[in-house]
């Protein structure tokens, strides 16, 4: 048990906490973070009063914008916290001093990650009072807030692990930071963009509704929007109708109502196929992913599972890259000439 505690709560965490909180940067970062979220919240609050509308949607709109904005803020903050973690030790020439201690390399990684992620959790906790404003309006349940925070923190963890991995792989902090930001934006917006560039083409013969490509669920934006409005804002994201297609002598195309209408090529009379088949653009909102790799899952579950998978792979890669001497089972030392 003590070994497990020593591996997870190691001196590096305590040292990082101590040195991080002694600088003026941390309180300043916290202050700016809160001011930005609170400022945006106040701006939305003011504009809602001005424009009017359905009161039930106030809370939902406020929540959606705040939760996406918080995710984007963390996309800027987290790589900066972790991308210098290991490369900074190399640049400061302190890493060898750690390697010769009894702390195993994985604990060094873990300590750095835990210290950085604790700061992210602190930022999230600081934003809780602002998020509680949405309850004034209603329309958002507590479980939605909890799911959104869960997605946000797992996404931040993934960004943190990506930062640590680049920090371990690349020797220079500057290069690691640039790479970590590129990685973060690919994760957030690249995967989202993939759904627009290469959407799932609806199969006319399918019996289930089409879903965006599985990779798009890597972006935390999708589950966050889904949690906020039950998928309304993602109605036609990531899917496309086939241009036109032949269906048993009929000429079919998408209908405005989400189904499809077919017309006899000879008569030109429109015939509704009706029902769910042959296809519908999207499953009813608020339900699970209708088809594909994650069929039956909630989008946030797909996102968390994929991101934790990335975290695991990236952490294993870092644990392999970090030690000064990499020992792999298939490596054999050359024969040694020995002298008497």
């Amino acid at each position, binding site marked *: 048990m003590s070994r497990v505690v*020593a591996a997870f709560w190691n001196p590096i965490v305590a040292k990082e906490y101590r040195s991080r909180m002694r600088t003026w940067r941390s309180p300043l970062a916290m202050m700016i973070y809160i001011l930005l979220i609170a400022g945006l919240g106040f701006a939305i609050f003011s504009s809602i009063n001005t424009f009017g509308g359905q009161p039930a949607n106030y809370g939902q709109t406020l929540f959606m914008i705040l939760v996406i904005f918080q995710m984007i803020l963390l996309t800027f903050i987290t790589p900066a916290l972790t991308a210098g973690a290991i490369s900074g030790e190399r640049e400061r*020439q302190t890493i060898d001093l750690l390697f010769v*201690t009894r702390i195993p390399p994985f604990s060094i990684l873990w300590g750095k990650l835990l210290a950085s992620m604790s700061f992210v959790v602190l930022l999230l906790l600081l934003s809780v009072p602002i998020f509680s404003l949405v309850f004034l309006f209603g329309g958002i349940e507590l479980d939605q807030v909890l799911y959104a925070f869960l997605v946000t923190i797992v996404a931040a963890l993934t960004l943190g692990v990506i930062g640590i991995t680049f920090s371990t792989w690349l020797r220079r902090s500057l290069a690691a930071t640039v790479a970590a930001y590129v990685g973060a934006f690919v994760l957030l917006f690249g995967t989202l963009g993939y759904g627009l560039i290469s959407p799932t083409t609806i199969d006319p013969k399918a019996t289930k509704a089409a879903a965006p490509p599985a990779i798009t669920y890597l972006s935390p934006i999708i589950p966050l929007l889904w949690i906020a409005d039950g998928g309304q804002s993602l109605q036609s994201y990531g899917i496309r109708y086939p241009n036109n297609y032949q269906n048993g002598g009929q000429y079919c195309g998408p209908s405005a109502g989400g189904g499809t209408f077919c017309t006899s090529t000879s008569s030109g009379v429109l015939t509704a196929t009706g029902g769910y088949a042959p296809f519908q653009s999207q499953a009813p909102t608020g339900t699970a992913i209708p088809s594909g790799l994650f069929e039956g899952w909630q989008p946030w579950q797909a996102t968390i599972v994929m991101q934790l998978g990335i975290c695991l792979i990236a952490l294993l890669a870092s644990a392999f890259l970090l030690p*000064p*001497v990499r020992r792999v089972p298939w490596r054999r030392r050359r024969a040694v000439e020995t002298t008497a």
Partner: protein
Amino acid sequence: MITAENLTKVYGKRTALDHVSFEVPEGEIFGFVGPNGAGKTTTLRILAGLLDPTSGRASIDGADVEKQPQQVHGRIGYMPDFFGVYDQLTVTEYLDFYAACYRQPKQRRTKIIDELLDLMGLSERRDQLVDTLSRGLKQRLCLARALVHDPVVLLLDEPASGLDPRARVEMREILKELRGMGKTIIISSHILPELTELCTMIGIIDHGRMRATGPVHEVIRQLTADRRLRITVVGDKEPALAILEPLPAVRHVEITNGAIEATYEGDDSTAADILQALTAGGIKVSAFSQVEGGLEEAFMRATSEEVG
């Protein structure tokens, strides 16, 4: 206590270490001397488990540096030639951090740190931030850090480099105290006299090869045993080199400052034989003299580039 057997390290086409072997018994202070780039740091990093040798093996107190790095780390205190310190940490916190990294129990750490600060003369600086210390004090702090787990072996890579004369003397005094505590120490330096006073054993390394190793007095005798001749010839030097090199008494020939310098084993009679061989070979010798060499010069000779 410390054993290196045929340590070889190859970086691409460059051989940084070429079959380096030595042994340091318990309680000895081994001075590891050689010019910059000779392979001292590479050897020490291999011993510290920070670098894998291309071939060869090394062990510390019975623990193989490649196979049992954790055991080795518990037994060594390593001070690199270049190192940094963390900002925003006081001297005490810095040492406490490393003591914790070496798994020293919390209740013992205060006592260990007090003793080390006292030994290093840093007691009055205990609450100072480490990045505000002078280089000399940082060196002492780094040495204190290497001692937090009471290691049996100390690997010190150029511990006195970059220090002013006063700080060098202070560092030497501290090392003498450590010697008194029975630690087995390897100290690397590119300055020989700095080590001869302190060390019981010495190893001279150059271009990745161990030129001489053993107890200090033996190595000095070995280095100064060879006699040297300075020969000036009229005309081309190549025919003279061609005559000198095959002679059994001649160990080493090189051209220095326009003259031929030949190291040989033997006495004045051997020198006379060498002169005779040159003149018999038709070489016009304009000057022929014995060169008196001190320890420093002997070291320079041992670590200079070989001719041919």
